[in-house]
């Protein structure tokens, strides 16, 4: 167990390091952020002074070294646009994304897995076919368009729910979250549904595939022969056996949604991190781009670690060994 953690942490450090090099070189190749930001009226002298002030005249290696040594001192940099430390900036917006993603993942799981189980349990029923058809829609129709439809329907035409924004923010266990207020829930529900559709489709298909396969296996036949009720077979035996691919995909999806829920956040004007990173890229806000992407890598490493731990819990055959 201990060697497993040590190997994982070593791997994580290598990945983060490699990522920082890739991002840094990539961002450097785009060009000088001052040329994107500067006001047209600025003189050459002002421009030159700024370039020096931000160390942009230094060679790439030198800039990268400065960045690394700052990181070593716990300083991930300051946004060139907002003049706020990148860590503060990201974490001022992260709770919003987190709550949105959690609600959407809950919706996707609570609807997707039961629907998938049913579709695999009775693959030829009308209900199963309907579920499969809807799941195709879920991940083939663009989120942007569904988002606009939801807004048009529920906010503009019916006037039931707000068209965007985060609503009143309350406090839950000391964390600022809109899930603590009714107004907050009314704001979160539409974007969460929008964000969950793709994942829901994925969950349904994965669960169904596993279910269909499992229904024909020997252990299910034996269980049936033993006279166990179907309910017990499905929830206690099959679900557990088909969980591994579901958990894997769940983990990956959770990570990518947390990091890049951009489309939904833009359509619903949700003040999350996805929008922040896109704006930073458009404005070439270098410190935010570099540090954020590195934080995302760390997030993925953490999620994968948790996924591995869950594997071991689900399937006793999986051993957590070094190099796993």
């Amino acid at each position, binding site marked *: 167990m201990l060697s497993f953690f040590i190997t994982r942490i070593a791997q994580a450090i290598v990945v983060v390091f490699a990522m920082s090099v890739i991002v840094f070189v990539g961002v450097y190749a*785009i*060009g*000088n*952020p*001052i*040329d*994107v*930001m*500067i*006001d*047209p*009226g*600025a*003189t*050459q*002298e*002002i*421009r030159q002074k*700024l370039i020096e002030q*931000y160390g942009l005249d230094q060679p790439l290696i030198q800039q990268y070294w400065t960045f690394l040594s700052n990181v070593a001192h716990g300083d991930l940099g300051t946004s*060139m*646009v*907002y*003049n*706020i430390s990148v860590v503060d*900036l990201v974490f*001022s*917006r992260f709770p919003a994304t987190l709550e949105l993603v959690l609600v959407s993942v809950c919706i996707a799981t609570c609807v997707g897995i039961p629907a998938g189980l049913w579709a695999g349990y009775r693959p030829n029923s009308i209900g199963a076919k309907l579920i499969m058809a809807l799941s195709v829609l879920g991940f083939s129709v663009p989120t942007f368009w569904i988002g*606009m439809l939801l*807004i*048009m329907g529920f*906010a*503009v035409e019916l*006037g039931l729910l*707000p*068209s*965007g*924004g985060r609503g009143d923010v309350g406090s839950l266990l000391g964390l600022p979250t809109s899930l603590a207020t009714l107004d907050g829930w009314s704001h979160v529900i539409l974007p969460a549904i929008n964000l969950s559709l793709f994942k829901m489709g994925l969950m349904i298909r994965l669960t169904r595939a596993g279910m269909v396969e499992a229904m024909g296996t020997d252990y299910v036949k034996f269980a049936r022969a033993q006279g166990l009720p179907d309910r017990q077979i499905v929830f206690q035996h099959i679900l557990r056996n088909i969980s591994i691919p579901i958990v894997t995909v769940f983990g990956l999806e959770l990570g990518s949604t947390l990091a890049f829920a951009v489309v939904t956040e*833009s*359509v*619903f*004007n949700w*003040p999350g991190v996805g*929008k*922040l990173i896109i*704006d930073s*890229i*458009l*404005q*070439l806000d270098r410190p935010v781009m570099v540090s954020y992407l590195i934080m995302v890598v760390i997030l993925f490493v953490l999620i994968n670690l948790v996924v591995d731990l869950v594997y071991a819990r689900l399937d006793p055959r999986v051993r957590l060994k070094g190099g796993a």
Partner: protein
Amino acid sequence: MKRLTLKSAVAALALMAAAPTAMAADLVVGLRAGPDSIDPHWSTVGSQVEALRHVFDTLIDVDEKLQLKPGLAASWTAIDDTTWEFKMREGVTFHDGTPFTAEDAKFSIERIPEVTGPMPMTLYTKYVDSVEVVDDYTLHVKTKGMAPSLPNDFTRLFVVPSETGMEARNEEFNSGEKAIGTGPYTFVSWQPKGDLVLKRNDDYWGGATAWENVIRREIPEDASRVAALRSGEVDLINYVPASDYLAMKNDGGIDTFLSDSVYILNIAPSVKDEEPQPITINGEPVDGNPLQDLRVRKALDLAINRQVLVDVVLEGLGTPANQLMPEGFFGYSDELGEREYDIEKAKALLAEAGYPNGFEIDFTCTNNRVPGDSVVCEALAQMWSRLGLTVNAQALNGTVFFPAAAREEYTMTMSAWGTLTGEAAYTYGALTHTKDAEKGFGNFNRSGYSNPEFDRVFGEGAQTLDPEARKKLYEQASFIAMEDRALIPTVILQTVWAADAGKLDMTARVDQETRTYAITPTQ
């Protein structure tokens, strides 16, 4: 300057008279962009300046057509070649009750170089040599050389109390602790990319405004902003997309407001001896740079059908342009006629220049800088193909376009330029003057255009303090650059605001600012 003062006093009185009749009401505005910081000396970005005008005042203000009017400075005069005298408005107090004096103005000018960021406000203080407080209400600014445009530079010079302290940090402004100005609203709260919440300043020197509480909400996505208005979540939105404009105009539930903007889409043909991307005929590079020939540039100009660009490509939201600034700006030339569209004449000119069968040329534009830039780009390529040219049009994201344009890697480009100061020195000095780092001219002259005659006339204007004489010289300079096709202007973009019908009255501004305090409820 007396007349100006009187005018503003009358305006202030009119506002005060109007205020009591307007019932206390709240206004929620959906905006495409908001501030990046509450420190008014951090950045020159338009959305930042627009937002902070609500909390802070500038020394000099601008009207809807960007012409100067008094702000915290009641009047200003040049007392010799290198000294401007500013008379401060008396009886103005900051939100915390301390009176405003010339000392605060001096402090603000001196604070800018200490704290400004990568979009530097030093731009507005670059001519300032030293600042001297003569008495509480008189300020003398000594300039580096003659600086006739200093009052224009000061239209974005926000004043903070001298007690703020040079070292005041960005976080202290964002939290509201230091967000103390003299403006029409007091600061309540703000989050980056979130809502800017404001409360009316009842003691405002210009008269209290109509709205008691104002929320300026940032909704960058066009479709979402429109949905927010339609669902009643906000009362007013800016930058209505062209695709929604017609539907809104015909919708009885929505009022629209329209104005020309300062932004004009200009084509910049490189006239360097060797063009950056080769111009070819049948794949073979052409000898010399065809764009150096005025006849070729004129042919390109004549082949543009500006009316089609406006009516079809921009769906009506534009005006044909014949120079780099809209009408009414300081230095706008009345001598220049409307640009004609004549494809036959264009073909003849091209043949005369030695290219009867045209050539192949790269054409690069921005695609997200202003509404319509990428579609106009494509339309221009098609118009030139009728002239017999093969145009490889490419519309790029600004993040890629601007650094490469600064490295002068493109043969012909199109991008938007806004005359944000309302006068010619800003635009022609940066775009068409010969590149001259020492004088600070030609910083954005990426085409290599250089005309000694233009430089002479423009340079003379920059050294003339008398506004009338300077205006004449700038008009002449505009004329020379435009006749030379140094840059080819195409269309002036228009901006649209939309509001709930019957809710409010507003005058649409050429600088695209949404000044909440200038909006009045419909009676």
